[in-house]
């Protein structure tokens, strides 16, 4: 699947879960990533949390191998299965999950082991320093903001010097500015800790900003692995496009802003479109996603429509699926449109036919 690089995560496991309620679930994940931040991306139910728990050691895989940073944590072939406390793998949960009965310093000192009290406190304060949270050392978790809690959770997980760190959507409950600030902190922490991080997110922008490798999970399988920019720009499989939530991916240059009317103009490389107002400087590049089902196709020029974009083009290719037909339209930039078999028949859609695409400005969403 990919070249194995032992410095990051080297995972090849089958995990079977049979919950007391609900359907049994099988995760069959195989990927190898480099040192740095490995981002795991996928829709909910893809198996991201199951993967994390298996690496952490909290659920036992059926078979396979888990190696982080060159350390073998689990290997069914050799019978290796380290206990959670011997794996030295840190975890940060979505809801931080600080120990509510301990203050911030107490939480961070928890993993510092049987060292004298003074030393533990010093260690905790040093760890809090690295996440910029030293001044809240004496507060209780209930007194903290969401962002502060995640900072403390990061400090707690990193204080004992783990050999890898797992992050289960740690920023998903935060507002955009805190999310961005914590992302910066995370990059710094990874560099200074020098151990691989595995970061689960469903925010594609975050995935691209933070990740050195992107692993796309869908329905318990790894559908694509690679550098985030490349995966996002060219989803190899339909499953990846579905996981990312978009079939059309463009990189364009911002040409103009119309704040009073609430839209921006972006040149996608020969085709200029109107999008919702973007927070990107003029002349800068921007990646945009567009779902195939958000595009209307017309065989004649349509007037009096509310769609901001009416693009003339011609059909370059039709590929028939079971439920629908995917049509590639060159404007000259190629758009993927999905229509029904019935529409193809009624409109007489065929290669080379001149068509118009109707797209709302707000159907374009910014990816990074």
């Amino acid at each position, binding site marked *: 699947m990919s070249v194995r690089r032992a410095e990051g995560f080297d995972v090849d496991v089958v995990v079977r879960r049979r919950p007391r309620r609900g359907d049994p679930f099988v995760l069959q994940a195989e990927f190898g990533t480099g040192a740095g931040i490995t981002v795991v991306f996928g829709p909910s139910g893809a198996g991201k949390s199951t993967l994390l728990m298996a690496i952490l050691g909290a659920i036992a895989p059926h078979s396979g191998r888990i190696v982080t940073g060159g350390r073998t944590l689990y290997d069914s072939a050799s019978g290796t299965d380290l206990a959670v406390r011997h794996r030295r793998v840190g*975890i940060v*949960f979505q809801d931080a999950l600080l120990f*509510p009965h301990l203050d911030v310093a107490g939480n961070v000192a928890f993993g510092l082991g049987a060292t004298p009290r003074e030393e533990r406190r010093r260690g905790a304060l040093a760890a809090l320093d690295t996440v910029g949270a030293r001044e809240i050392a004496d507060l209780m978790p209930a007194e903290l903001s969401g962002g502060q809690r995640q900072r403390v959770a990061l400090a707690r997980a990193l204080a004992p010097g783990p050999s890898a760190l797992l992050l289960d959507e740690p920023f998903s409950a935060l507002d955009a500015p805190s999310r961005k600030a914590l992302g910066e902190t995370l990059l710094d922490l990874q560099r200074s800790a020098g151990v691989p991080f595995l970061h689960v997110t469903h925010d594609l922008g975050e995935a691209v900003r933070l990740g050195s490798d992107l692993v796309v999970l869908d329905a318990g399988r790894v559908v694509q692995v690679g550098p985030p920019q490349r995966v996002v720009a060219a989803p190899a499989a339909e499953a990846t496009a579905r996981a990312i939530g978009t079939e059309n991916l463009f990189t364009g240059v911002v040409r103009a802003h119309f704040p009073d009317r609430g839209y921006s103009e972006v040149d996608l490389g020969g085709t200029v479109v109107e999008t919702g107002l973007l927070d990107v400087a003029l002349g800068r590049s921007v990646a945009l996603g567009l779902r195939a089902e958000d595009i209307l196709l017309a065989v004649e020029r349509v007037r009096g429509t509310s769609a901001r974009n009416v693009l003339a083009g011609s059909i370059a290719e039709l590929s028939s699926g079971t439920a629908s037909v995917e049509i590639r339209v060159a404007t000259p930039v190629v758009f993927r449109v999905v229509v029904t078999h019935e529409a193809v028949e009624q409109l007489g859609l065929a290669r080379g036919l001149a068509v118009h695409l109707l797209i709302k400005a707000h159907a374009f969403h910014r990816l990074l």
Partner: protein
Amino acid sequence: MILHALRLSLMASALATAVVAIAGTLTGWLLARREFRGREFLDALLNLPLVLPPTVTGYYLLVVLGRGGLIGSPLYRATGWSVTFTWAACVVAGAVMAFPLMVRAARVAFEETDARHEIAAASLGRGWLSTFVFVSLPLARRGLIAGVILSFARSVGEFGATLMLAGNIPGRTQTLPLAIYDAVISGQDRTAMWLAVMLTAVSVAVMLAAGRLGRPGSTSR
């Protein structure tokens, strides 16, 4: 005689509660956190004293612990001592009757706390015992304290099983509830009233003390 009954009731109940608090907490944690074969069967078995009439539970205890019983007989042959009709029997009867209440309270208390706290503690290098003492117990504190109060109250009020296993020997195995019964039967209404008031006072005092412990921030970190 009355003072002896009070002292016996308090001591036996305190001992029974101490045993039940430890064993019940561990059992409750096991039922809440671990999947194992026969878990539901164990749960049902432990709950038996709740549904059986106390005299029936007392009868079974006699069968098991009596001089000719499954455990009682070899114990008697080895040591010449039998638990029946001693103050220790009051402890055993109180503990057995209170145990299911403690297990139930502990199970619910642990189930209500997020198991991921324990996973987080383990990922920080802590062993099972350390995690249990410094994370699981403090998080489940309120429910556990409630369970201990309930257990103490249940064993102070124990009547049926105690009567079967310990008898009703004034000055030796007569607890407060048994003394009240005796007083009523023999027409000593004033004594019965004083005993009842005493028992009520004990219960209220325990409840107040426990309420203090249960308040947040009162236990040490």
